[in-house]
């Protein structure tokens, strides 16, 4: 188990001064974060830019040392016994850096594998199996500079698994990937947790990705954990609005009035808009589900329903909600 307890990270940042006299400013990137990573589970870490996600990940992967608090991995302290921790963790970041572009995929993996003390037949067979897993076996002997973005990302995954880590940190892994590859990647990540029993921490800006993959979500804002729950519970608990969209062929004055009354009765709001096809789209927003009363109302006015769909609040809404609050 990976235990993060009351971790705080403060950076000293040089403010613009002359060469002779320098001024320092203290920036608290992470103020109090605690969580646990358990084998087989995927944890999501969400927050707007600058919230402290990457700093947290770097502390867990031993690249940064916390200012206070502790991080232990299977009993080893991440700062004092970092050598043992480094052998058990790995990080996969999005983007195209962190690979040697003149080397082939296989050569890259060979090099990084040797940094973990792997060599000989054991390393070779692990490389082959990883290349197969990420679907790069055919391109294994092509220089990375000729890989597409998706291929580079897949190679990054293979590199992140080269030491068979028990704890894996994914920092925006599908950044810049197109939909089919991103989907494949998500499938793979799920497999790593479920089938291979790895503990995974994932940060992402793609909210649906987090909703799909994560067993638990931590939301971090200004360096503090502000929420922790399953994705579903989280959206529910914040009591965000559901939007109900219905498209009808005609809107009479009396129907319009009744829709208004309905919205007010349920403590919500109503919007109407004429569409291009000379129909009307009515949107009812509120914290309560108004589907049944709406349908009854439309039936009473003998109005056919051309289209109807519900928009549930998503984690995106959660984040936006928080961003609005921060801005306010």
């Amino acid at each position, binding site marked *: 188990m990976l235990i993060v307890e009351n971790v705080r990270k403060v*950076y*000293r940042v040089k403010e613009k001064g002359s060469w002779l006299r320098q001024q320092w400013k203290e920036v608290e990137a992470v103020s109090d974060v605690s969580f646990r990573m358990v084998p087989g589970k995927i944890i999501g870490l969400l927050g707007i830019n600058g919230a402290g996600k990457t*700093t947290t990940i*770097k502390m867990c*992967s*031993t*690249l*940064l*040392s916390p200012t206070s608090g502790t991080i232990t991995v299977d009993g080893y302290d991440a*700062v004092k016994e*970092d*050598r*043992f921790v*480094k*052998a058990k*963790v*790995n*990080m996969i970041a999005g*983007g195209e*850096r*962190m*690979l*040697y572009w*003149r*080397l082939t995929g296989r*050569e890259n993996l*060979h*090099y*990084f594998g*040797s*940094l*973990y*003390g*792997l*060599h*000989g037949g054991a390393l070779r067979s692990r490389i082959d199996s990883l290349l197969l897993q990420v679907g790069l076996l055919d391109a294994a002997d092509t220089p990375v500079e000729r890989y597409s973005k998706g291929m580079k990302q897949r190679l990054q995954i293979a*590199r992140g698994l080269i*030491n068979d880590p028990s704890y894996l940190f994914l920092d925006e892994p599908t950044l810049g990937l197109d939909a089919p590859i991103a989907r494949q990647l998500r499938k793979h990540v799920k497999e790593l947790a479920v089938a291979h029993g790895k503990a995974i921490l994932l940060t992402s800006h793609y909210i649906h990705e987090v909703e799909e993959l994560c067993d638990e979500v931590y939301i971090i804002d200004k360096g503090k954990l502000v929420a922790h729950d399953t994705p579903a519970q989280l959206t529910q608990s914040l009591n965000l609005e559901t939007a109900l969209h219905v498209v009808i062929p005609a809107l009479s004055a009396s129907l319009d009035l009744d829709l208004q009354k309905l919205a007010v009765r349920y403590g919500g709001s109503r919007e109407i808009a004429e569409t291009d096809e000379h129909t009307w789209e009515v949107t009812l927003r509120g914290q309560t589900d108004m589907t049944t009363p709406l349908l009854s109302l439309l039936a009473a006015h003998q109005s056919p329903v051309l289209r109807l769909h519900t928009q549930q609040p998503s984690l995106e809404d959660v984040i936006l909600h928080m961003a609005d609050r921060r801005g306010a």
Partner: protein
Amino acid sequence: MKQLTALLWAEIQKEHRHSFHSKMVYFSLLIWPAIMFVTAYYSFAPFRTGADSPLARFLSAEQLPLFLLTGYLGYIFFWCLVQSAWQMSFERQAGTMEMIFISPVNRLAFLYGRSLSSLVEGVWLFFCFTLLALLFVGGMHPSGWWAIPLAFFVLLVSAIVWGGFLSVLFLFSRDASFLYTVLDEPMLIFSGVRLPPLAFPLWAKAISFCFPLTYALQLVRGLLMEGAPLSALAPELALLASVLLLLVLVTVVLLKKAEKHMKETGNMVMY
């Protein structure tokens, strides 16, 4: 130990493919040094170099070509093994350095493995030199058959340690090119590549003693030009060994400090 050798070998393979591709080797390790060597030789043409000239205090005129050749060999050998140190600052920008620091690899082994990784190119260079010396330039008086491998070994070890030291400096520096100018070019003057350091005033001699190349060249010239016996060279060997040891210590200390700084500030650039 096995892991260490495997790491060393992996570094060699990677550096060879990533940094040194064939055209570059022919130019930087053969053509340019050859031209620079003849330029240096002709640069002495404006001076009087006869048997009773001031130069004769330090070396005879017919030894001049070999003196320069050994000087350039040593310098380029160092330069060759230092190229990978130079790469460090690029790797820091490319992000691969983070991936190395996230791994548990022994930092010192990694550093020296990096320097050593230009081994292949160094061997090629030494071979060309020996050939040139034998064919065109006279004045070679090796101390024995063992003088040539020993000279190679001396150059190799000194360059690797120097390369490791520079690697740490470059890796954590914001402006590696400036450091390179400050540390590399003076080596040309003060280490006795082109001029005998014995001729220098005290202050210049003091500077030359800071470079391991100075000692290495003295030894190499003693072994290949003067035919000096091992007993005569022993004190110089000991001196070189202690200088290298000091450099290794400084490297270790710097490395620890730099990694600690990186963990605290999240920034690989220390200065």
